[in-house]
């Protein structure tokens, strides 16, 4: 009994949001070269102020409604629920303009960049979803857009490269390292060092130096904000029993969890990519395989050698193929606030096919990882489980075709 009370108190006093120094518990901060300091500091001093301005709010909300198509539906997945004997709701971020949650953040950041007087936008991209979302808002606002993308990813994501080019963006291949997302991020950071005055860097995930993880989380928080009132309408309560999201860097997860972080009744489930298996050497399950360290300007969990060299992750899903995880999520893992699960390539692919057949929705392979947990975790029949359907599977069609020999 006494123990119970103590746990409740701990639950109430634990803060899962960023503190004034930019940390989530022991994770976060801004470990950046001095060359980036003025840019990051300018953003840190202004982001909350700008986001609170009524005209910013008005423009952001109007674009989310009329341009992105928000609110995205909260859909009760009847056949999927029957199969797994629980109540599964899908938050349909896949129905957003450009096909994923990524646009929530790029709309917010382009408005931020304009108010900071920036005229040139850079971004990194893995599969190309964030690159497309950035190129889209740059076209919308008439700003120059440069997207860094690993040479290997450019070859395997040709349709998204074409989309970015149609939208007027310049796609620059990252030729260093493994020539994938991690290296594209390095190149974008180097570009920012070389262009310190007129350029804003739109980071696509809840990573990077403070204030990026918090800023991206706040722009994505619209997802959990909508879940609350949408669930109230259909279930008569704002809080589900569980929220579920896949995690690479963790922007869709951050948005899905945000308004539930301090609601102890809501279970938080984070789904990482196990690749070919946790112990296979070909994995991206950072919470299991990672150790505390510094990547892309923040202290967090990352996959690295004993010697502190960052290692190459692997996942069939380009969006989860990242060796780190956002500092907020590292804190959720360390404190036990979130339950971390990992799903292999093959389980994810099967779950993607299953959702297609049961609900008529072809999900992104990233999202398929989250969908696969129902085979591994049993929920009660009256549990309400809200899963963020973070993206649509159009971009992954070739992967599905190759995998299932369709």
């Amino acid at each position: 009994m006494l123990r119970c009370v103590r746990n409740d108190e701990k639950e109430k006093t634990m803060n899962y949001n960023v503190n004034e120094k930019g940390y989530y518990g022991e994770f976060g901060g801004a470990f950046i070269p001095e060359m980036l300091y003025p840019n990051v500091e300018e953003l840190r001093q202004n982001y909350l102020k700008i986001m609170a301005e009524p005209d910013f709010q008005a423009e952001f909300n109007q674009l989310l409604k009329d341009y992105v198509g928000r609110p995205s539906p909260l859909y009760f997945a009847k056949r999927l629920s029957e199969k797994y004997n629980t109540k599964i709701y899908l938050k349909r971020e896949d129905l957003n303009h450009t096909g994923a949650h990524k646009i929530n953040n790029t709309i917010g950041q382009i408005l931020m960049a304009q108010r900071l007087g920036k005229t040139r936008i850079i971004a990194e991209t893995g599969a190309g979803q964030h690159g497309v979302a950035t190129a889209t808002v740059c076209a919308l606002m008439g700003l120059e857009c440069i997207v860094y993308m690993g040479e290997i990813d450019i070859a395997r994501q040709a349709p998204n490269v074409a989309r970015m080019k149609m939208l007027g963006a310049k796609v620059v291949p990252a030729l260093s390292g493994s020539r994938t997302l991690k290296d594209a991020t390095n190149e974008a950071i180097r570009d920012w060092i070389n262009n310190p005055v007129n350029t804003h860097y739109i980071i696509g995930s809840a990573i990077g130096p403070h204030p990026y993880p918090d800023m991206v989380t706040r722009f994505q928080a619209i997802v959990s904000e909508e879940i609350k009132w949408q669930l109230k309408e259909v279930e008569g309560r704002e809080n589900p029993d569980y929220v579920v999201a896949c995690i690479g860097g963790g922007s869709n997860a951050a948005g899905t969890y945000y308004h539930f972080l301090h609601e102890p009744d809501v279970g938080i489930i984070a789904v990482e990519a196990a690749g070919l298996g946790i112990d296979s050497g070909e994995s991206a399950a950072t919470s299991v395989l990672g150790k505390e360290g510094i990547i892309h300007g923040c202290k967090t969990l990352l996959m690295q050698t004993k010697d502190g060299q960052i290692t190459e992750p692997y996942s069939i899903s380009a969006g989860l193929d990242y060796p780190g995880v956002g500092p907020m999520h590292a804190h959720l893992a360390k404190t036990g606030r979130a339950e971390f699960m990992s799903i292999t390539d093959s389980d994810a692919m099967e779950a993607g096919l299953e959702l297609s057949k049961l609900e008529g929705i072809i999900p992104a392979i990233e999202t398929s990882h989250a969908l696969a947990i129902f085979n591994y975790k049993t929920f009660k029949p009256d549990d309400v489980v809200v899963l963020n359907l973070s993206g649509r599977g159009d971009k992954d069609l070739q992967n599905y075709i190759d995998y299932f020999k369709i």
Partner: protein
Amino acid sequence: MNRINQKLEEDKKLLSIYFTAGYPDINDTVTIIQDLEKNGVDMIEIGLPFSDPLADGPTIQDSSTQALKNGMTTEVLFNQLKDIRKTVNIPLIIMGYFNPMLQYGVEAFCKKCSEIGIDGLIIPDLPVDVYHEEYQTIFEKYGLINVFLITPQTSVERINFIDSVSNGFIYMVSSASVTGSKKGFGSDQEVYFKRISNMDLKNPQIIGFGISDNKTFTQATNFAKGAIIGSAFIKFISENSIDDIPNFVTSIR
């Protein structure tokens, strides 16, 4: 007195050279250091290679990638350097990114540096504020000088803070760029060099980034105590051989 402070008191313009440990060959580290000293270089920055060097351009990135492929690690570097003070007298600085040091343990890393006779560290992604709050006492305990960077965009207030935390020299980045990307200095740089020079800082300044030959070395040292060459040296030993180090150094001054 720390060798860096002694060197800074000498009445001459200092030439400092950066190279990546473990490049071109894993066992070149000690030879390169000895040859640089023999040929009159005043100070050496030994680069501890990192997989993701954010502040570096392609030349140093590629040398780091190759050095890691060659098998360079923190432990290997410390082993290579364990007897370096039997033959080398000039100041030696280790330049590397923070994560490998964090994994080694910051205190263990500093202790090892002090045992070997390393005089200072340059860690581009350890900001001065974090250093000041969390690590300064450890560095001071082991007598290590930590060197901070300033750029043309660094505010006066921050330069003064960096000056107050520093006890060796200030690494003045010549222009907004990663290493190895600009050729030559224009009037913008001269204005910036003069502006800093006129601030009468407690610590002398040494200019780096964009120094590649006699002309840029002379321009830089007109306004500062010395200059650092990195990418141009790496490029030179890639295209020639480490046997040609005397030619490189004499071409600079």
